[in-house]
Every structure is written in C-alpha cells, then in structure tokens.
C-alpha cells in the first residue's frame, strides 16, 4: 500500500514539474515537441529520484556506521 502511495506521489509531482516545464502556453493539442519534452523530463525526473534515494540511503548508512 505504501509502495502504491509512493508511486502516486512521484506521479503527481512529476506530472506537475513536467507540465510546468514543457507546456508554455497550452494549445489545442499536445504537439510532438511537447510530447518529446515530457518524455525526456519524465526520464530525468525518475533519474533524479533514483539518485536522490541512493544518496540519502548511503548517507544514512554512513551515519549509522559512525554511531
């Protein structure tokens, strides 16, 4: 359940960030360049989330080792 909530949270924040970044003035359809921008933005956002998770976990482990 928490895994689902977590995925939902990521989905929401990613949608918000990528919509803001890729849709300047909203037009009559999601054109090709906007779709490309969103796809790239998604991939980078998930990379960022992965990198942040890993960095946070490795920091946590170092802290525990120092205690």
């Amino acid at each position, binding site marked *: 359940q928490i*895994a689902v909530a977590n995925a939902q949270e990521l989905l929401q924040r990613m949608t918000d960030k990528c919509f803001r970044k890729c849709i300047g003035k909203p037009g009559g359809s999601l054109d090709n360049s906007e779709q490309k921008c969103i796809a790239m933005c998604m991939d980078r956002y998930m990379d960022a989330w992965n990198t942040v998770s890993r960095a946070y976990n490795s920091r946590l482990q170092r802290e525990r080792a120092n205690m």
Partner: protein
Amino acid sequence: PQLQQFVEVETQKQRVQLLVHHMTELCWEKCMDKPGPKLDSRAEVCLVNCVERFIDTSQFIVNRLEQIQKARPFFSESLSN
C-alpha cells in the same frame, strides 16, 4: 459494505475537488498574468486548453510509465489505479 462504499465515493469526490483546485492554481498562473475587469475570451480558451493539456500530460505519463514498467519494472507494483 454500504459505509465502505460511502467512504470510497466521498474520498474520490475529494480527490477530484483537490485536482480541480490544483489545476485552477496552475492554469491561473499560466493564463491570467493580469486579471482584468472581465474574463476575456483569450484567457477562457487558455484555461480550457490548460485543463485539456494537463490531463493529456497525465495520461501520456501514466501510459508511458506502464510501458516502461513492462520492459524493466521501476516500481514493484502496478501504477494503473
């Protein structure tokens, strides 16, 4: 089961209302830089397009995520609901 159903329906309603508030803020920022004495038609078209493109973006992201999930699972569970 009736109580449970009631709670689910109310939760769903609330989620929709929060989404509407969220889109109002987002589209207000995109479309209404200078609020005038009336809602002019340019701003109205922009707001409608903004809602449509925001939902398109959500769906595009969910669909693409499902495809990625099939190829190389990123999450341990499905994102479909």
